């Protein structure tokens, strides 16, 4: 069993994985396939079950139900050291009593690999820290420790590399740099990376595929662009970027398009992008998709009239407006500062327009605030 599982390769398949602690269900009937060679992100707020999922894949927690397969091998109950899976821990967990060289060599030595020195030197060159081999972890900066933790894992060339909030402890600038480097290293070594994070920007920068998790379940899975442009739930719409969600009713069903009534004003949208189950729906439009125009200016696409500028924030690349609509809702609008047009002022009467194809539709019974009250800074799992 052990010998078999250690050489397993292929896609990672989680089938109906459940993990409960007493009454609390951390991971709830989760089914997921992560293709070999991909950079996959599990994204969600604190307590959504993403870290628990990762620990079950690593073998550090045992699922209450369901199974985990790597290729054709069932690894659900194998010990962590019997799995061809390595983890980059959140706080790196470098062995403080060993040198950097011995930290990286640890996994190779346990498996009785012959050319330890050569392989460690190669991976130290990959992370560009060959001069630190004889230091102790405590003598390294946070960014250096992060790279050593990565090197210690990838030197084993695991079938699967797990990253648990690997950049959480770094400052913003270093984080951006490491995001790009991680992505580059993943391409270079060609391993499957599974990355757990609460930072939507980090997930979108690095991952090919993102699974957004909430309360132990996957809300939606897809490429960063799919998730952003066509979110299926209010949670996803709000957790990934900002959204304007306007309550409406489906009026007519005209071939590929829907006509939607938003407080008496008719708009159209693509039928494919509606996830409504009945006539009621929320029309969703991202703030940067809106255009603001003065009354009487001709516009294309969907238009909502009767808006009044409530607030103007100039932030360099764009100007952010808050526009109050006749039905009492305030909409966010981001306008690029690229057309030399004089900005609007507080109190201006305006129309709002957008391309019909940018609209996405959510079920009418959604909680429009889901996923908005998450403060990434306070998250610590």
């Amino acid at each position, binding site marked *: 069993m052990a010998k078999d599982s250690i050489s397993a390769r292929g896609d990672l398949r989680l089938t109906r994985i459940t993990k409960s602690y007493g009454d609390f269900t951390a991971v709830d009937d989760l089914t997921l396939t992560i293709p070999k060679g991909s950079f996959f992100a599990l994204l969600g707020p604190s307590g959504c079950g993403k870290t628990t999922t990762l620990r079950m894949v690593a073998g550090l927690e045992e699922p209450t139900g369901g199974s985990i397969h790597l290729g054709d091998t069932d690894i659900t109950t194998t*010990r962590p*050291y019997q799995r061809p899976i390595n983890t980059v*821990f959140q*706080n790196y967990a470098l062995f*403080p*009593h060993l040198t950097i060289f011995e930290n990286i060599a640890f*996994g190779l030595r346990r498996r009785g690999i012959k050319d330890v020195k050569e392989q460690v030197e190669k991976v130290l060159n990959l992370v560009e820290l060959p001069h630190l081999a004889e230091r102790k972890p405590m003598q390294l900066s946070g960014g250096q420790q992060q790279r050593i933790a990565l090197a*210690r894992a990838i030197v*084993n060339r695991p079938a699967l590399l797990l990253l648990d909030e690997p950049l959480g402890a770094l400052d913003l600038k270093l984080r951006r740099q490491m995001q790009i480097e991680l992505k580059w290293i993943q391409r270079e070594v060609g391993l499957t990376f599974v990355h757990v994070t609460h930072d939507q920007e980090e997930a979108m920068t690095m991952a090919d595929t993102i699974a957004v998790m909430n309360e132990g379940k996957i809300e939606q899975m897809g490429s960063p662009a799919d998730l952003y442009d066509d979110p299926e739930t209010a949670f996803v719409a709000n957790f990934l970027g900002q959204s304007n969600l306007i309550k409406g009713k489906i009026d007519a069903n005209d071939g590929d398009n829907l006509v939607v009534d938003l407080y008496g004003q008719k708009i159209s949208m693509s039928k494919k992008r509606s996830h409504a189950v009945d006539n009621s729906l929320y029309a969703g439009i991202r703030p940067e998709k809106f255009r603001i125009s003065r009354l009487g200016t001709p516009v294309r696409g969907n238009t909502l009239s009767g808006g009044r500028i409530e607030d103007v924030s100039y932030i360099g690349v764009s100007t952010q407006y808050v526009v109050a609509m006749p039905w009492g809702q305030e909409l966010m609008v981001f306008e690029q500062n690229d057309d030399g047009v004089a900005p609007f002022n507080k109190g201006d009467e305006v129309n709002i327009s957008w391309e019909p194809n940018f609209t996405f539709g959510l079920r009418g019974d959604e909680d429009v605030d889901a996923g908005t009250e998450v403060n990434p800074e306070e998250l610590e799992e």
Partner: protein
Amino acid sequence: MSQKIKDASIPTIPVKARFSRWFGRNLLRIYMIFGFTYLFIPVAYTFVFSFNDSGKSNLIWKGFTLSNWQNPCGAPEVCKALGNSIKIGLLATIFSTILGTMIAFAIGRYKFKGRSSSNLLIFLPMATPEIVLGASLLSLFLVFKINPGFWPTVIAHVVFCISFVVVTVKARIASLDPRLEQAAMDLYANELETFRRVTLPLVAPGIAGAALLAFSLSFDDFIITNFNSGTLITFPKFVYVSAARGIPAQANVIGSAMFFLALAIVIAAQLVKRKRTR
């Protein structure tokens, strides 16, 4: 303000005020000097009188000699007593360190029924007055018809040393990040290898500290030893008995030597630690 300082006719601060300011700044230093003086005068006294050309009683200074240091076993029985104390100390240290470390791991790492009560019970030998512990151990040995002597003393010392070992090692285990062991398992080390290569090396300083503590506790224990050792003479017993007719200067030699040995160990440990963190 700066204008005033440049002025040649700056009013000088009165001496009294200057002194009180100096005193305020150095109060902690003065207090420290007094504190250390208080602590080390007895040690210094012992050290100085180890050079006393004393003859029978080592109470009055009679002149400087090195003969006590050249011949530490000169006084009758002193080295035999020392040998017994070292033997008992080493045995008690070995047993209490092994058993105590195992208990510390059990309490510190695993959840089991009766964990919190055993955690509490471990403190009892520390809290029990030595005189009570010594007397009850003696009566226990007598009930089992074991005569006081060498092994009963070792067993008695293990009893009270274990508590200190458990407390010391447990503190070290508590400060150990469990993720380090998880990382080792993640890197293909099985349970045994993880313990040997990660857990044990990281807990080792705590175990070493506990062993030193156990040895010094055992070495200078008098009360419990007095109950359980019978006719066996240990170093503290020797000093106590000879106090009645004058402690030989050789006792001072051995006492001072022990002090400097302990000091050397502490300094060496500090140096190693500093070298490691550099």
